[in-house]
């Protein structure tokens, strides 16, 4: 594995290997000294062209837990962004001596361009509405911890699927691990022409609630999607939100996931967010472990793929 850019063609065995590694790193993170020297002397750089504190910190924590050094570059907030192209920025950062680059960018495909220009491994930290593979791995880890495996599970991904890179990444990863996925949302938020996608679709959340094992709620994105794609937030919450009533209709073992940050009261009710069966905080800690597994694999692990 030279880069991790997408889950779309990531073989099942690679995902499973990363999850096994990630379990080891969960144990490392629970130690009194949550640190191992595996990547000592390596430098991991994050280049985040979209504002993001959570994902960037998660990658930095993962790198540091492996004893790597980190460099963080946010052109969105730095004067370097003026007139300096993505390519120039990537080459400049690389010239400072990095061993791996994490790239998040608002344009689909940007990490692929960076991977073309650099000879170090590139990890896609999120590109446009396209892919966010490390989030998918972290979520697969969370579900695996809860259910043992994804094989045969029924997972609903609910919300603004059209503009969600988390939805796409997760759909492919869940499917690869044997789950059956249903994409749920208002018609304006489901993608057009999805024949051939490894998922069913539905515009009626209530119809499938009592059959699913995992409800994966997507954040209502007001900064993407170019304006009003559905009438109002209260209407969204009413038809697609995980209200207390809907939560009550879920199977007793079913769980709720959310990539964060949550809009409490919109896609998820307050009480539901704090319930034991809402695994949001676990997703966050698993995010660090999953990213450790990815960094370890790319910078010195067993070459599975």
């Amino acid at each position, binding site marked *: 594995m030279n880069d991790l850019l997408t889950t779309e063609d990531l073989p099942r065995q690679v995902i499973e290997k990363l999850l096994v590694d990630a379990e*080891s790193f969960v144990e490392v993170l629970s130690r009194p000294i949550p640190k*191992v020297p595996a990547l000592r002397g390596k430098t991991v750089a994050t280049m985040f062209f979209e504002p993001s504190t959570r994902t960037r910190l998660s990658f930095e924590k993962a790198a540091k837990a492996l004893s790597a050094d980190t460099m963080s570059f946010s052109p969105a907030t730095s004067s370097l962004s003026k007139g300096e192209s993505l390519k120039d920025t990537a080459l400049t950062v690389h010239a400072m001596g990095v061993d791996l680059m994490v790239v998040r960018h608002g344009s689909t495909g940007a990490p692929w361009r960076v991977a073309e220009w650099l000879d170090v491994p590139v990890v896609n930290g999120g590109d446009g509405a396209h892919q966010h593979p490390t989030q998918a791995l972290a979520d697969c880890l969370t579900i695996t911890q809860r259910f043992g495996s994804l094989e045969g599970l029924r997972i609903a991904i609910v919300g603004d699927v059209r503009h969600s890179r988390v939805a796409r990444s997760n759909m492919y990863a869940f499917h690869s691990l044997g789950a059956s996925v249903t994409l749920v949302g208002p018609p304006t938020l489901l993608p057009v022409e999805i024949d051939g996608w490894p998922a069913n679709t539905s515009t009626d959340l209530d119809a499938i609630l009592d059959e699913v094992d995992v409800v994966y709620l997507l954040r209502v994105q007001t900064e993407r999607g170019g304006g009003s794609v559905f009438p109002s937030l209260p209407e969204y919450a009413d038809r697609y939100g995980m209200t207390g009533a809907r939560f009550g209709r879920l199977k007793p073992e079913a769980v709720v996931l959310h990539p964060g940050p949550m809009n409490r009261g919109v896609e998820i009710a307050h009480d539901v967010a704090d319930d034991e069966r809402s695994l949001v905080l676990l997703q966050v800690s698993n995010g660090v472990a999953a990213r450790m597994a990815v960094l370890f694999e790319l910078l010195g692990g067993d070459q599975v793929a």
Partner: protein
Amino acid sequence: MSVDETSRAAAHTSVRFRCISGDSKETILRQVMDSDDLGRVTKRIAHEIAERNHGLDEVVLLGIPTRGKPFADRIAAALSDIHGAGFTAGSLDVGMYRDDIDIRPRARIGPTDIPELLDGKTVVLADDVLFTGRTIRAALDALADLGRPSAVQLAVVIDRGHRELPIRADYVGKNIPTSLTEHVSVRFLGIDDEDGVWIGQSEPA
């Protein structure tokens, strides 16, 4: 032939070869220990551990994955027989502590399961083959992050020589001098098809 031993051996020889999993390069395999031999040395080592440490109260047994763990489990079973009480082995993964990640990009990581606090205890590490000593050095680093044992001892099935670090085993099943182009394969029924120890002559790449 496991990937572990082959690549462990390979990394430290001047003759480098790749072992793609499932595709072993050795052409001649000679068996040097069979199942009975393995059983005998395991029992002997168990006795030695109990004797040397004046009992098992302060002993924590940790196997180094992959094949150090089944060895540790068998020692633990033998110790349970001796003392009539259930004694279990934990595991200590060293994949994250290796110092040779750059030249040997095949570090596997396995589970770390420490059954009790290590502070003040005597940790007995168990591994299948002692070769350059780098695995044990990594294990010592890992132990340092996990607690403060009062002593660390080492039990191995085979000591094949060629140490690169000042490390020695306290309990050895068998000393077998080898050349660098040979590799030693310890197999355990359960993860392999049978018990025993084989030595193979590997082809250079």
